[in-house]
């Protein structure tokens, strides 16, 4: 028995060891290397690196461009996550039936998630074409003016956000449908006794019951949207006038268009810190609100 207890004590370390090893080698080491590089000026080809201390960080935070990049990223993340989750919730409630057509539509809604964006960038170019695109056609029908979409700094970020939501909604919808289906029917039945309007049922019962799912989706969506790259690289290259320049794209551009590895690494550190802060607060909140069977 004593031997068993001792084994139980060190067992967890063996269980997590492989994962920790992989994380240390392939995530922590590179991030530390990144942090190390952020104190230098280097262009990747020259054999020497120049130590510059905090200079890279100072330049970043005094550069209007970088501040705009941070602001663009936060706006993008917040907007995409907010609308994606809400739209997905509404869609999930609406499509949550088991008929063939419902399943079909669920599948179609999920389809953007499985294609790489490059395959469909042309269509978006057409959809957002100022004169002959479908979106402006509908805006016209509704009596609105033509939107410039990715052609104007005022509307470019909005365009990218739209694409981001489109890509992500399907995944969230399916996950929420799953969450809805795990709400015991008995709860609805007991409520059906009182005459409530369905929106009240929705708000007071459905939403709280799927809140763990929603929390999960929020963090997953935040992380995914923080990493947005492909869409921007293909549709706008950060422009026009820096309006769609977001962190990962900015880092890539600074490193490989401008050959400024040090500066890019510093921006990488900033990105990492922002995400770490978000994760930290997320888990703080989550641990208060969700219960598990084993507690």
């Amino acid at each position: 028995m004593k031997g068993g207890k001792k084994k139980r004590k060190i067992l967890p370390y063996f269980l997590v060891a492989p994962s920790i090893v992989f994380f240390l080698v392939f995530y922590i080491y590179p991030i530390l290397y990144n942090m190390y590089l952020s104190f230098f000026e280097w262009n990747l080809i020259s054999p020497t690196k120049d130590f510059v201390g905090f200079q890279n960080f100072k330049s970043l935070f005094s550069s209007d461009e970088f501040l705009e990049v941070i602001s663009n990223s936060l706006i993008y993340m917040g907007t995409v996550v907010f609308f994606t989750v809400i739209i997905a919730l509404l869609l999930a409630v609406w499509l949550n039936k088991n008929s063939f057509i419902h399943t079909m539509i669920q599948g179609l809604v999920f389809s953007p998630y499985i294609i790489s964006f490059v395959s469909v960038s042309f269509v978006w170019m057409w959809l957002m074409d100022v004169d002959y695109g479908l979106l402006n056609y509908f805006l016209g029908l509704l009596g609105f003016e033509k939107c410039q979409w990715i052609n104007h700094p005022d509307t470019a970020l909005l365009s990218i956000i739209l694409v981001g939501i489109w890509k992500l909604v399907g995944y969230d919808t399916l996950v929420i449908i799953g969450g809805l289906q795990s709400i015991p029917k008995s709860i609805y039945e007991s409520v059906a006794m009182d005459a409530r309007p369905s929106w009240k049922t929705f708000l007071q019962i459905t939403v709280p019951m799927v809140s763990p799912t929603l929390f999960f989706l929020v963090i997953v969506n935040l992380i995914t949207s923080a990493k947005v790259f492909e869409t921007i690289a293909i549709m706008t290259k950060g422009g026009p006038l820096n309006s769609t320049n977001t962190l990962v794209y900015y880092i890539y551009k600074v490193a490989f268009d401008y050959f400024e590895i040090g500066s890019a690494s510093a921006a990488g550190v900033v990105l990492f810190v922002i995400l770490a802060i978000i994760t930290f607060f997320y888990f703080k909140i989550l641990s208060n609100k969700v219960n598990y069977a084993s507690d």
Partner: protein
Amino acid sequence: MFKRVLAIILASSVLLAATACGSSTAQTETEGDQSSAPSRGNEPIIIEFWYAFGGTVEENTNRLVEEFNASQDEIIVKAEYQGGSYNDLHTKVQSAFAAKNPPAVTLNEITVIKNFAENGMTQPLDPYMEQDNFDLDDFIPGLLSNTQVDGKTYGLPYLRSTPLIYYNATLFEKAGLGKDAPKTMDELLEFSRKLTQGEVIGLSTPITTWTYEALVDSYGGRLLNEEETEAVFNSPKAMKAMELYQQGIRENVFKNTTGGDATSQAKLEFQNQRSAMILGSTADLAYYVQIAKENGFELGAGFIPNGGEGSVPTGGANLVMVNGITEEQAYAAWEFMKFVTSKEQTIKSSIATGYLPARISAKGDTVMQDFYKEQPLFRVAVDQLETAIPRPMAENFPKVNSLLLDALTECLIDPSADAQAIMDAAVEESDALLAQ
């Protein structure tokens, strides 16, 4: 117990490693050959040529490598695709160089050739040229401009291009404009006015710095001064290009597109016959020819309209030899580079890819002439090379390029904006960068 779990994990890792090693033996042989040179005479020297772009460029590259390998026993060249853009290729080459395992031959887009050379990534070709009495006289002078760094030759022209003006000859006829491209900037504006009717706009203007550079150079202005220490795109001559653009947009006879997709969007307008003219690269020619054929309109191509001086920038990439390789590899690399830039090969490459032939003698060769008779539009770019000038190669040019692009965008999105002020501001910032 947990021992079993551990065992399974270890076993799978070993298995995986075994697979990894298994598929790497083929590779390590080549890697090995690159770092320890086998003696000449026993085994062939194996080198790698890293290139970018698929499609016809890849096909042509493979053909070149096959023919070279078949023509002799000493050297085997392996061509490896490294991405769909020069940026991807450069990134890979740099990473490989940092890992001390670069290819022997690769490409440098013309604006980075100086960067790579000055940082010790590529080596000068002069010693090899001297040994073989290889001279540059037969190369088209306009193409040599972006191969020289500090008086030494670092690259040989390979896939080079110039900008052209493409136009829809069918729409020209409908507007009563005859079959020729506009010859001057004034004609460009005039033609645009006549062509803009109904759904059609005269000229598609994607906001990119390369097409802008073409206009600036044509007016006799420049982006940077000759020593590349100052930005001069706010000079009176250069600003004429901006005046033209703003005028055209104000009159609604030019149409802008911006953003990463700008060029694609503009091309779509032209291909859908909603714009009658567009500036583009020689590289686009073959594609436009086919689209025009399938969609029933006649394609025309002409020199960039003359704004006074009529100079034109070039584009594309040069072949370069990487630094730090062994003597054997350098020898092999040089042989390959000579082959690729030989008259016979440059003719074949030009016909296959639509890029320019690098040599003067190639231009006059009967095979080339016959090709031009069949496809007269391909001749236009070559003829324009008479007035070709170099593109900027300064170390900080990519950043300056970004500044210029932003300034351009500002001026063209709102054509009533004070262009001079905006450009002056951009020039000031650029000067600071160029001074570093």
